[in-house]
């Protein structure tokens, strides 16, 4: 059993659920779910990670965005067993262990890039990957990359400002190094 888990295999629990080994925000954990549970449900209901939010439930809005092996995905469209042996990062994993917010999170605050904030955690995860993948993205490229994250309050301009500013801050940081 231990060996199979170490290899990232799904095993059955005594009550017939699935034990799904995965890395969650930097720590090895075992998610417990039924085969039909989504990653979204499992992260919220089993792990208490309420930063992962359900919006549309059909992969359109981006509120439930998490990183799976470093790439943003809609956790409402991932079945829990699919994450076996893989690495998940949620908004809860962005800040430092002592609670210091990441530079991206700080940029959102500095620009007040939210109103109700329901969409914010999804935007943060997508923007984090955008910043890694396209450190020199133009405003237009940021707009394209974030097009699949919806904000019903309409904070898009502020969100674009925050992400553009973050990229600039990181570029300045790189130059200073």
């Amino acid at each position, binding site marked *: 059993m231990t060996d199979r888990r170490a290899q990232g*295999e799904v095993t059955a629990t005594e009550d017939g659920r699935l034990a799904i080994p995965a890395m969650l925000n930097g720590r090895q954990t075992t998610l417990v779910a039924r*085969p039909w549970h989504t990653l979204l449900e499992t992260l919220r209901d089993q792990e208490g990670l309420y930063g992962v939010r359900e919006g549309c*439930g059909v*992969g359109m809005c981006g509120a439930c965005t998490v990183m799976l092996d470093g*790439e943003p*995905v809609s956790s*409402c*469209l991932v079945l829990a*067993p699919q994450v076996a042996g893989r690495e998940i990062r949620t908004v809860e994993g962005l800040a430092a262990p002592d609670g210091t917010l990441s530079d991206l999170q700080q940029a959102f605050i500095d620009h007040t890039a939210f109103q109700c904030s329901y969409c914010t955690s999804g935007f943060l995860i997508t923007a984090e990957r955008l910043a890694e993948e396209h450190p020199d993205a133009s405003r237009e490229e940021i707009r394209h990359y974030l097009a699949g994250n919806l904000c019903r309050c309409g904070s898009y301009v502020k969100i674009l400002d925050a992400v553009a500013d973050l990229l600039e801050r990181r570029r300045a940081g790189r130059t200073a190094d």
Partner: protein
Amino acid sequence: MPEPLRLFQPTSIEEAVAVLAELGDDAKVVAGATALTLLYRQRLIAPGALVSIGRIPGLKTIEVVDGELRLGALVSHREVELSPVVRGSIPVVADAFGKVANVRVRNAATVGGVMAESDYASDPPAVFVALDAVVDVQGSNGKRSIPASEFFVAFYETALEHDEIVIGVRVPVPPAGTGAVYHKFVTRSSEDRPCVGVAGVVRLHADGTVADLRVAVGAAAETPQRFRDTEALAIGKPLDADLIAQVADAYADQVDTLDDMRGSAWYRTEMVRVWVRRAIESAAAAPAR
């Protein structure tokens, strides 16, 4: 949710096929799960078992061999979109996969999945049909290859037998000088599925007459629509506005358009006329590879 739902995680194609052969239609293959999760959670399907093929090795290759671009079934949309191999051989394939939904869906959804789902409003099928791609599948009786134009049979229905899975797609690299485009026309939000999607492939002789013209229309009917008789009419003729209009009108006449929330049948017919014309114009003007 129906219970029990059994989960299989085969590590070889043969093992996956054996499960499908045993369980028949009660089992559903799942890879990226973006489509299956939707269908399942909305109770449009109720399988008794899921066969998760994500761990089968050897299905994630992207390569050009013998003049064909070969995409493994487990290659994600995002990988196709960003692949230098795809961009360097048949850029329109990367372009079409890059227009699907949003970056999250493209990270999860696979090449095999978009084929096997046969959703009428997916973007890649029309491009594969226009480019004469071939779908490689494997089942209890071994492997076989199905032309993309015959693979999509009807609404969410393919030529796959219940014990067969898609293992890859092969796309012949068009001759130098061929222009190929995919136009995705959306009527709602930018990341929505298309109202009409048109793939156009054009190669002209030096004198401006048509050497090759292929057009496939997606999202307008149950399956991608291609009319070879219409295409053949253009061969050898000068590609002028009249000829393009003839082809566009013929497509508008022949596509049996459907109604949905992205457009009425009448509207789709008119959009087929417009976008077939634009696809041919822009394919003819596309920089030669």
